[in-house]
């Protein structure tokens, strides 16, 4: 049995290596310009990834949450249970109406439900996940007790906090685009807002530079990993076939 498993594993590992090698070369061929090989790889990738996502949705969302509860609910005496299970089926039927141009308007009932749910989730996410934590983190820099509890010099923490507060406020002001018409007909922001926004530009420049450096480091790591995987595969081929 173990031998069978090993025999099965070796070709799958090898096949995975071959596919990985081939697709990496096809994608990296873009470095010499847009070409048919790159397009073949990207179109195949989009197709396979979409198919994979569809199967994951089917097996991990629709089967356990939609299909499996249907029969037990239909056989049960509880009207509430039947409604709980049948409403998503009705919603699904409405969404499928989108396929027909004449009936696609009915799909807006389900879309309205999804948009309403999405709006509520993003409001809660924005308030509890971003606004409150960001405000709290900024305020904490000026908490003398917290600095003492962490055994850090309060002036140093408050100084850093002042820079962060200035960065947050001036960056927000930078995105204020309210302007008034001038005597010469041009539109300009209020003078003080203009000055604060200029400082905000510096902070945004620093932030985007830091993000750029982080993304570039990640991309460089991916490039090194891909080149390393190509060499690993060639070594594997040489050792497997004794080349």
């Amino acid at each position, binding site marked *: 049995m173990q031998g069978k498993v090993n025999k099965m594993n070796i070709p799958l590992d090898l096949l995975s290596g071959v596919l990985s090698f081939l697709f990496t070369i096809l994608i990296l061929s873009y470095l010499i310009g847009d070409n048919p090989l790159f397009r073949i790889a990207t179109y195949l990738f989009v197709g396979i990834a979409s198919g994979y996502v569809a199967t994951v949705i089917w097996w991990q969302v629709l089967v356990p949450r939609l299909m499996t509860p249907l029969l037990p609910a239909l056989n049960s005496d509880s009207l509430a249970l039947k409604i709980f299970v049948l409403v998503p089926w009705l919603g699904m039927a409405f969404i*499928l109406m989108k396929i027909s141009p004449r009936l696609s308007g009915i799909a807006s009932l*389900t879309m309205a439900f999804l948009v309403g749910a999405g709006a509520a989730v993003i409001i809660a996410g924005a308030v509890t996940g971003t606004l409150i934590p960001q405000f709290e983190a900024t305020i904490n820099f000026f908490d003398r007790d917290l600095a003492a509890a962490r055994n850090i010099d309060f002036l140093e923490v408050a100084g850093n906090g002042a820079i962060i507060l200035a960065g*947050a406020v001036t960056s927000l002001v930078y995105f204020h685009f309210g302007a008034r018409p001038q005597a010469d007909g041009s539109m300009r922001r209020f003078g003080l807002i203009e000055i604060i926004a200029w400082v905000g530009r510096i902070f945004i420049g620093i932030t985007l*530079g830091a993000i750029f450096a982080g993304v570039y480091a990640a991309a460089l790591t991916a490039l090194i990993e891909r080149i390393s995987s190509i060499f690993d595969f060639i070594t594997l081929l040489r050792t497997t076939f004794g080349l």
Partner: protein
Amino acid sequence: MRIITAVIAIATGTLILLGYFFEAFTDIQTLLLNWAVILAGVAAIVGIFNLIAVHADKIRRAEKGSVYSALLLIGLVGTLLVGMLLTPRHPVMQLLLNGIILPVEAALMALLAVSLLYAAIRLLRRRTDVMGIVFLLTAIILFLGSATLPFGDMPLFGTLIHPWVTQIWALGGARGILIGVALGTLTTGLRVLFGVDRPYGGN
């Protein structure tokens, strides 16, 4: 229909939102979110079938690039059939994931290293204002602070300047941007809940 869709969106949104703040609404919130997850899944499947229809139409009309559409359809339908029959945990599906999807994603990320370098050079040539200079200067300082150089770490860069720039100066701007994005998101959500924006149609 316009009124019905608006009522559905506002009622759903309000009930889910109340569930975040009042315990009495937690059950209804869980139920509605469960329905939303199912329907979002169905919507995604419909979207994928729309992708199939668009590319099948391109092949039928023999448009330019229809060979690529054929490849996309072969990949999509093949993966879909295998996945439906065998489940995503089957070794064949794992082969597709580890042999094609993940390496292509990593290779596309690797291409970004070249594209970003090219974009940075273009920025330096075309836009030499304060923001552009600050942007590139920060990036260079952070590279010098984190890169492994042949002659060892640069004094002060890795230990002092790099953490000071990322954890204080860059954090200030990032916090402003994050708060701005959150305020924008909040406004968009509230406009939907008040029925001012109706992106779901329903004429």
